[in-house]
């Protein structure tokens, strides 16, 4: 539960899910111009993962509101 108080975790999850959605849509949709969704999805996914990794590090910049 404490993890949910970490804003980096919340933001990481959001962009991870959006990234995966865009990638899946980019690969499986018939529509043209899907390359935009693929590279945007990749960037969002990467950003989400970075945020999640940062949230596992418990340092002085702990984001939970005590």
């Amino acid at each position, binding site marked *: 539960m404490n993890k*949910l*108080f970490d*804003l980096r975790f*919340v*933001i990481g*999850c*959001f*962009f991870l*899910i*959006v990234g995966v*959605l*865009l990638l899946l*849509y*980019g690969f499986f*949709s018939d*529509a*043209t*111009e*899907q390359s*935009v*969704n693929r590279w*945007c*999805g990749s*960037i*969002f996914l990467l*950003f989400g993962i970075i945020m999640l990794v940062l949230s596992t590090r418990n340092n002085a*910049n*702990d*984001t939970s*509101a*005590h």
Partner: protein
Amino acid sequence: MHLHFIDYGIIALYFIFVVGVGFVLKKKIKTGNDFLMSNRSIPLWITSLAFISANLGAQEVLGMAASGSKYGFYTAHYYWLGAAIAMVFLGVFMMPFYYGSKARSVPEFLKLRYDEKTRTFNALSFAVMTVFSSGISLYALAMLMQTILGWDFNLSVWLAAGIVLIYTFLGGLTSAVYNEVLQFFLIVLGIAPLVFIGLHKAGGWEGIMHNVDNVKLHLWKGMENAAHNPMGVDAFSLVFGLGFVLAFGYWCTDFLVVQRAMISRNLNEAQRTPLIAAFPKIFMPIIVILPGIIILALQKQFPGFELPKNANGATDYNMTLPVMLSQLYPSGILGVGITALIASFMSGMAGNVTAFNTVWTFDIYQTHIKKNASEKHYFYIGKVTTVAGILISIATAYFARQFNNIMDLLQLVFSFVNAPLFATFFLGMFWKRTTGHGAFWGLLSGTSAAALTYGLTVAEGKGGWIANIHTFYSGTSQAFNIAWIAFTICFIVTALISLVTKPKPNEQLVGLVYSLTPKQKDPTRVWYKNPLWLGIIVLLITLIFNIIFF
């Protein structure tokens, strides 16, 4: 513009996350202090991003793209001249007084420095402004969704207001601040690909330089005369009106943004909040202004990028970003772009509602209606105020729909109230002789001077309801001139009345006035934790940008 299942999915996901943040934080919020002030416990990176995100409302995102296509690079003055310098001043010079005085709000600082009537004047005008601004945000969101997506006006109003209500009601200020940071990343990451794709399609930087009128690709060229630049302003009113009065008045005294720094964990972080925020702020024109310039280059090369006309038959520049989104984004990323737009509206609304909440509860209710009640009571009042604030916003949105001009009128009145404010704070912090009577009457006469100037001048057919003694080249120029006139009148009246009234004794002004406050000396502090060094770096980068785009 037509959305697909994936786009609706992304919008729904965002709604689930913002509401989820409220539910998660609910358990942490136990007192009025937690609810209204986040118990001064928010880390620096969050306060900094929330600081600019509170300002990154729809007016900023849609409005700056619109100004970008109307005025070109000149719009960047709102960032480099109209924000960066004031943010540095707030961080280096003013934050020690706000944070150090332990005031819970900007009006409360006025009470400590001056007196009750000055505080009440500021608190009342601020409360009215925030709650109406929130309503205007809501109205603009619903109108935009109706225009570009065909959504029902009522649905947009109640859905957006309902979501903001849930997360601010449950998690208070912390929830609003957390969501502002999520919104910041969403807006930046959701619109950055638009800039990239647009720039690529327009033929890169070369394509911009080749296809956009050269008059719109400068910052200072033609500023010697209002007739020689697209903004229609001259250098004096730009520098004094926007760069000094309006910028300092907004960034250094508006509780909506200052509140984000006041909830920091310690003074050093409170000081660094606006300074760290200034770094993304000075690069923000890439996200918010550049789309407006890119569309000009695209209009010359491709069909479909023309802006529609509004009800008056004039070009509707506010449609710049929506047109870019519909033309350049395929389904999927389009959902992210639309969510970013919705986020900017909700961020503006939540910021206003939480600031309204704090000021109403502490500066009006606790001061004038019920003093010395229990902590639990003020917590309860904070929650009731949240609901009331949202309901008034909804009413305002419907009112604005009935009377379109009410929006213009409200914004005009806000500008009258805001323009003289910085003179009151500046004199209060740097001249110990300034008195409460001086501040109060200075504010009143500054606001009256603003209204009078508007009544005596005309620009683009507006103003001049008393007489027309001067015609400004543009509405922007009129606004900048009104600002510096109101500031000057407020400054002079405050100073004169202060000289003939009795000042507070020195011992009551320690921590509130510069000359009476012991300077902090911390030689061990590394440069990146030193507000002064950070401020100098911000100003240097800003200067370089001004030279590059001269």
